[in-house]
């Protein structure tokens, strides 16, 4: 049994204590960060200078909900949907129409709209998740365009291009700034729920299966992951939360126009925000929403009705893809990690790598030395093995490791 090899014998000397300490440290850091984030979000309405800034805050939170919801399918499974505006739009219209025609409680209407969209997402998912990559993107865009045409043309039901006025959930005695404040907290609560569900999935077996699909779908299936069912569940959950986000936006904004609800741009923003923050990070889409949401409002404010904000967004997306393909959060984490004590000791990696290099460089000698170890199982420190590991461990200069790891 080759249970112990040269690499293991070197490594078992110390990595666990360092690993435990840094893990406990990072957990503390995470808890502090979470509290700070919550305080920052909840205190925003109090520090917002005027109702306009507060309304920008609501827009950003709405984007954060949509991007985080998008990330259930984009981040976990790697299926990039550019057409998630379908679900936010359907959620918005379903909420509005339910409130108008049944005069039911607006929050109940929003929840019901979310469930209706989730049910609709089942056949849509079954049809569209059969294809991967670019084909999936195109199918998702096609759906938005179809819905745009339907909602524009079916004027008698949807209000068509004239738009749909959605009654506000709060009475006339609640003034605009108060409305914004309430909706800011409501969006924050919805975001918190979406983040909690994302986190629960992330740590579950189901989530591990989804991430495996993102990395290599066929391989995941060969390991017993029912890939199609998993993708479909993630897709439906994503559509559900996206629809809730759309519904809440409808209740806040009070007016729906198909051209803005079923727009490729809204779907692209969800993708851009998530990519910018980092699709594999819990808070990635949120961070992206803050940056992109703020930038959009800033550019609109500066350049008025021109299309300049679109150019700026395009540039931003280009920069992200070129320089931070994994997003800001992973890039920042990697930067921080570089200044931290290594979780796995420098020594063991360099020993393994050096041994590997030696083997490729000089297969004959390496073979002879390796054989003496693998054959009798335990790590016998014969002359050649001693020199090889000895040389590697003594020579643990960071430059060697840096070079070998990168």
């Amino acid at each position, binding site marked *: 049994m080759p249970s112990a090899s040269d690499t293991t014998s070197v490594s078992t000397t110390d990595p666990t204590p360092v690993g435990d300490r840094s893990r406990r440290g990072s957990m503390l850091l995470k808890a502090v960060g979470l509290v700070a984030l919550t305080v920052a979000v909840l205190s925003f309405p109090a520090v917002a200078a005027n109702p306009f800034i507060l309304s920008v805050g609501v827009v950003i939170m709405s984007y954060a909900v949509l991007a985080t919801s998008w990330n259930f399918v984009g981040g976990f499974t790697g299926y990039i949907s550019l057409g998630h505006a379908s679900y936010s739009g359907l959620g918005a219209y379903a909420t509005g129409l339910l409130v108008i025609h049944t005069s039911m409680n607006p929050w109940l209407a929003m929840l019901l709209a979310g469930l209706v969209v989730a049910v609709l997402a089942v056949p849509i998912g079954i049809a569209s998740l059969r294809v991967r990559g670019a084909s999936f993107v195109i199918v998702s865009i096609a759906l938005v365009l179809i819905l745009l045409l339907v909602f524009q043309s079916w004027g008698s039901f949807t209000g068509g291009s004239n738009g749909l006025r959605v009654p506000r959930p709060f009475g006339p005695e609640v003034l605009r700034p108060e409305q914004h404040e309430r909706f800011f907290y409501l969006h924050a609560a919805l975001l918190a729920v979406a983040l909690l569900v994302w986190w629960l999935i992330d740590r579950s077996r189901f989530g591990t299966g989804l991430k495996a699909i993102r990395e290599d779908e066929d*391989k995941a299936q*060969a390991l*017993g*992951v029912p890939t199609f069912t998993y993708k479909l569940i993630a897709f439906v959950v994503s559509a559900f939360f996206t629809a809730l986000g759309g519904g809440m936006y409808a209740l806040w904004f009070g007016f729906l126009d198909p051209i803005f609800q079923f727009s490729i741009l809204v779907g692209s923003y969800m993708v851009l925000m998530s990519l910018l923050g980092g699709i594999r990070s819990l808070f990635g889409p949120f961070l992206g929403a803050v940056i992109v949401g703020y930038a959009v409002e800033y550019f609109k404010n500066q350049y008025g009705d021109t299309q300049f904000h679109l150019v700026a967004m395009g540039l931003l997306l280009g920069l992200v893809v070129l320089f931070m393909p994994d997003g800001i959060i992973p890039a920042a984490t990697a930067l921080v990690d570089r200044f931290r004590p290594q979780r796995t000791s420098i020594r*063991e990696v360099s020993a393994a790598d050096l041994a590997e290099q030696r*083997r490729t460089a000089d297969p004959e000698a390496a073979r002879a030395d*390796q054989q003496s170890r*693998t054959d009798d199982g335990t790590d016998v420190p014969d002359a050649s093995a001693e020199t090889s590991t000895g040389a590697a461990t003594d020579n643990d200069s960071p430059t060697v490791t840096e070079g070998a790891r990168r």
Partner: protein
Amino acid sequence: MTATSEAAGPAAATPTTPSLATVDLKKSFGGVHAVDGATVTFHHGKVNALIGPNGSGKTTFFNCVTGMIKPDSGSVSYRGADITGKAPHRIARAGIGRSFQLCRIFPRMTVMENMLVAVRSTSLRRQLASARNAEELDRARGLLARVGIEHLEHSLARDISYGQQKLLELAGVLMGDPDTIMLDEPAGGVNPALIDRIATLVRSLNAEGKTFIVVEHNMELVMSLSDHVVVFDRGRPICEGTPTVVQSDPRVLEAYLGI
């Protein structure tokens, strides 16, 4: 049994029962008959090898058997049950684990996360529970230790060496606790020392009752490792038997050496 099969041991004493079997399996891509009427039986509890020249249909055969591609006709059965055309994850959970020709791991997941992918039960409660429960982690660490890479637990799979990735792939397959393990070129692209380590692993796992079906080009390894060898040429078996029988068969020499 021949003297060369060291791993045979107790398994060789028991009468052979069919593990995986195919009847008249066919698969063509356009005009190419990749698998052309293959009727093969692999033996339970043995190390079976599948050899043949490049393009003889071994990998297509593997893919048909594991459900990655649907065969055009013919049938596949596993321990008596028909599994023809079933989805890969169902075949995996029926007890057949497999590796891929060019080692496939999940590059941006850690070594430990790679280990936790294999699904043994799809009960809802189990799927929604945390992936990192103590029992599962212990099992994963045990298997990583067995293949000798337990110290890399926290590394990203893309950062470890190719040889270590091969070992990780094998350990990941073992997490699913398969009865039968299909290895597609386990020795491809790895150094001789690692080949020895993989061979030792296969022998010890076989001694514990795992059945192996190995596609391999390294003849030295095939002859020393296997109990039963099936030789493929142009999509169908041309000869099978113990390594010594196969080695001296004129059809094999012709297929391989063109004489």
